[in-house]
């Protein structure tokens, strides 16, 4: 079965990548979640960050045995184009559902309104997982998951906790 990860965009590559890395090893959740398809949401304000996130996402997934991960990118013309944000999540979930995939939405990265739309999409379309990566201290805010002490962060699946 296909596994799909849908996330938004952020100016911080760590915010986009760390939840994915934690999911792949099953840090804090019942079973590892290793997607073969990832959806990102770019916008003009992110500069090169999204291409860096794609590089890292590909390396992480290949490292977990996904031979050629599919990485989709949608682009917003402006980050406050709320209708486009909502449409992005809806389309990504519909695509995943059409492929009968196990679907996860990551609500961690981006501005608060991005997370609001991500969470709303997750509950509206009843996705399989709603992930949030929690860091106990902001001391590790600017680090990649692999170099953050394992006990300093935890992935939550909101579909399990609420």
């Amino acid at each position, binding site marked *: 079965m296909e596994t799909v990860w849908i996330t938004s965009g952020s100016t911080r*590559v760590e915010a986009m990548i760390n939840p994915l*890395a934690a999911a792949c090893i099953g840090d804090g959740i019942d079973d590892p979640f290793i997607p073969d398809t990832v959806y990102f949401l770019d916008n003009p304000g992110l500069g090169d960050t999204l291409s860096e996130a794609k*590089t*890292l996402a590909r390396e*992480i997934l290949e490292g*977990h045995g996904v031979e050629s991960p599919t990485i989709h990118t949608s682009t917003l013309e402006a980050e406050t184009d709320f209708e486009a944000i909502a449409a992005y999540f809806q389309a990504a979930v519909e695509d995943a559902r059409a492929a009968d995939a196990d679907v996860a939405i990551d609500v961690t990265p981006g501005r608060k309104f991005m997370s609001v739309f991500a969470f709303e999409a997750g509950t509206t379309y009843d996705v399989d997982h709603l992930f949030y990566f929690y860091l106990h201290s902001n001391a*590790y805010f600017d680090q990649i998951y*692999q170099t*953050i002490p394992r*006990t300093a962060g935890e992935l939550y699946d909101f579909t399990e906790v609420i």
Partner: protein
Amino acid sequence: MQLPRDHIVVLLNALYDMDERTITVQHPAAEIGELLRINLGDPQASTVTVKTGAMTYDSIINDIQREYGDEVYNELPNEAAYVKALVASGLADIRNRDEIDTTIKRYGYQDLHEGHPPRYAGFDTNLLPWRMHDVLGIDPELYGEDGAPKPVNGYTLAEGVDEELKHSHRYGHTAMPAAELADVFGTEFERLDGQPNQDSREMRLGLREYRRLRETRPHDVVASDTGDAGIIAGCKEFYADEPTGVILFSNDYGFVDRAREQKVPAVHVEFDLDVPKTITATWDEIALLLYELAVLFGVIVLPKATLYGAWDGKDEQDWQAETIDVQCRSDDLEDILRRDRAIAETYTHL
């Protein structure tokens, strides 16, 4: 597999993921055995239990000296170096913290905005290996509030110190053959062939700190001879006609007395004779400690992995990059470490 010091947490994470939450740190020699036990818990306050304290360690290496002679004994760091490695990693403190703070308050914290001349810190050769800029809490980039006067403004780097740090002996060339060391301490030591011997590895730690300060911090490189007299005279002469001043730090009372006689401010940095039995440490401090111990001892043994601070093939670039060689004794650990190290490196080079 090589791992730079900055990425040793990747190894700790890999061990943690394999349910190795208690990390025993052992020396390969049966006579020495377990040094420390690390419980990987709170990222800011994990527990480190010292199984072999400095006093016990001293008595063990004295037995080794009696049994195998001075040449073998000299290939083990002494008990003071063992304490200093814990200080350098932030796990233990220096003994005379108050005296150091008083001295820094008296001579440092120059208000550059008020036109005060900067004050630099100079370290004697015997302190350079132990990350004093950080341990003493004086580094201008790490300490002091933004815009406020800093403890010191940079560093005085004497050429004589550099010269002393560069002094190096190598196993099989100018030091005992590594194979003989392996006969006593364990086959792991065969890999040290051609590498700097114990004393020289300690100096390598110092040389790296010297270079780090020279590359990344405000500094004066001061022409000087080697030896206490040469280093002190070089500093005195350099600053004779400069508004800038220096405070010299040494682990040697003779050096401090001689500097003070010459009217150069100087202070002794004292280390305790032993370390506390139970210590709390951050994971970053633990990673740094593992690096220091791997270099000092040459080899240390962890669960599922053996860490080499020096190995055949370690070159100047590896020393510069502060790498250790990790030999995984578990294929699963090797797979995790290889994958996560690669990701961490990709991230670093983005």
